[in-house]
């Protein structure tokens, strides 16, 4: 990105991207809307406020590296990458998860801007360690960012990766955990409690930053600024988020892990986002699909 955004600009951008996510999810009748809405502020902050990446740099060996380890939130990442100009965002929104589309339900390298395929949980930290080690070997100053989910932290492979990141003192490496407290079967606490994540990262040699409101781009931005100046340690950003953030009936509701909206719910979601947008001084487009248009088969 030529110019990094500040907290307020990021908040507006995240809001617009929420609108894109709702459109994509509604059109495709698939995707992981709850996690998309919890992680979108993290993705927005990284892509528009922190990382040294852009479509023009996508082959540049010096670009920062990003891995979405919680790959099921590819929908959100596609919206971000499309918005950044890696490809036509409309193509992503209208073909997501459809027959023959390159915008499948998990990140894959057929999509410009995706560094490596992911989707099976518990891989990103280890792969990211490899990317960060390569930077050190090559004397390059790019940084590697990995975003995981809190449910994902039940995968044991994460701890092998964390151990290595600490062992190698990878200060060019930053893991963010999107702690939304829910997973497909219920609360993370009930399903498999990964308990004090901060302590676990600390024990493996990470510098840990807890972000109280992980849906606040300003707070996230400050955390990543701190992460960027740490020496001799990798950083973990533990971001406490709300699953389904921004849509009242989805917030903190496990049934929206990969819920599909009815038209009524879709209209309500868009209306809510538009109302919230006005409060932060921006205008969002109206819902694309009214009842009539939908009935006429405009829905792909």
């Amino acid at each position, binding site marked *: 990105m030529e110019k990094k955004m500040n907290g307020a600009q990021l908040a507006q951008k995240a809001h617009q991207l929420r609108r894109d996510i709702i459109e994509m999810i509604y059109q495709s009748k698939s995707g992981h809307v709850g996690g998309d809405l919890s992680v979108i502020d993290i993705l927005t902050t990284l892509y528009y406020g922190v990382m040294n990446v852009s479509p023009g740099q996508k082959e540049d*060996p010096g670009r920062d*590296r990003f891995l979405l380890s919680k790959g099921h939130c590819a929908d959100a990442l596609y919206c971000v990458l499309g918005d950044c100009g890696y490809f036509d965002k409309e193509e992503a929104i209208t073909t997501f998860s459809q027959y023959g589309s390159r915008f499948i339900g998990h990140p894959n*390298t057929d999509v410009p801007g995706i*560094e*490596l*395929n*992911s*989707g*099976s949980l518990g*891989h990103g930290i*280890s*792969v*990211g*360690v*490899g*990317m*960060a*080690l*390569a*930077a050190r*070997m*090559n004397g390059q100053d790019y940084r590697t960012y990995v975003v995981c989910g809190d449910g994902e932290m039940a995968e044991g*492979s994460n701890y*092998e*990766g964390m*151990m*290595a990141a600490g*062992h190698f003192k990878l200060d060019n490496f930053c893991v963010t955990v999107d702690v939304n407290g829910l997973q497909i079967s219920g609360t993370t606490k009930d399903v498999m409690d990964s308990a004090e994540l901060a302590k676990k990262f600390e024990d493996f040699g990470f510098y840990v930053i807890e972000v109280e409101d992980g849906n606040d781009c300003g707070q996230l931005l400050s955390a990543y600024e701190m992460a960027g100046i740490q020496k001799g340690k990798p950083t973990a950003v533990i971001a406490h988020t709300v699953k389904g953030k921004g849509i009242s009936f989805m917030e903190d509701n496990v049934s929206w892990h990969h819920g599909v909206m009815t038209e009524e719910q879709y209209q309500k979601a868009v209306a809510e986002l538009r109302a919230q947008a006005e409060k932060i001084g921006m205008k969002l487009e109206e819902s694309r699909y009214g009842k009539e248009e939908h009935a006429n088969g405009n829905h792909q």
Partner: protein
Amino acid sequence: MGTISNREAICEVLLEAARKDPDVVVACSDSRGSASLAPFAKEFPQQFVELGIAEQNLVAVSAGLAACGKKVFAASPASFLSTRSYEQAKVDVAYSRTNVTLVGISGGVSYGALGMTHHSCQDIAAFCALPDMRVYLPCDRFQTKKLIQELLTDTDPAYVRVSRSASEDVYGEDMEFTLNRANVLSRGSDVTIIACGEMVSPAREAARALEQEGISAGVIDMYCLKPMDEEAVIEAAKNSKCILTVEEHSPYGGLGSRVAQIVSAGCPKRVVNLALPDGHLIAGSGPEVFREYGLTAEGIAAKARQMLAESRI
């Protein structure tokens, strides 16, 4: 017997390559000794990554390194590499098409009496089933060297299985090597024995014994399990009465299964698979295990005679 093991041959090639290319990287999981890669770690500490006893991390970290331009050779016992880190091999290496060569050391029953935990009699089946993964079982030090030299020149994923001990020399320094082309050691009109890895040498010995009895027996070294040299298999099926496959692997999904598929589709002839049994293997050294299950020159020759006798009934 060769003067060095195939794993030592790999180290020699990688040392030579690393002297010219800083992107050649070796990664191990507390396996530098058993992989004979300690000399590499010593000479190129900056190009060597030790991950400890953590095979999943070994393979995923290797993929991350490769995604950033490194040519990575990840070496670990074949037993663990083909099971513990199978998903990392599937997702981070094969599906992501990263430039990682997975080197499975002490393959098959090399670890002998250490038992089933340390055997890898399913690795051919496992890795061949991964889209975009290539699978190679070289038979001696010369072929191993040529193979690794060739793999250094491309960027696609591969799995290479080698044994623990030195293997019998099948070739010489000047052997001809073409990637993904089988080596036809001899042609036979009665039977063609198709073997890979440690079984090539006894297969060749068996063919010599059969020839002395007046049986025309050919031998193909199918070191390239995937992509398999289908042309060589079809040619053998056309020119022989029957095909005998020999492998240090389970009867499921290995050399024999693939050869049978190719023969039945392209030139139907009888194919018999000589492999390890599907079960708990007897305790013993590698050679003792081979003897137990007929994976020796005598066992291979006996099976060939039996096939030809049955074909006359």
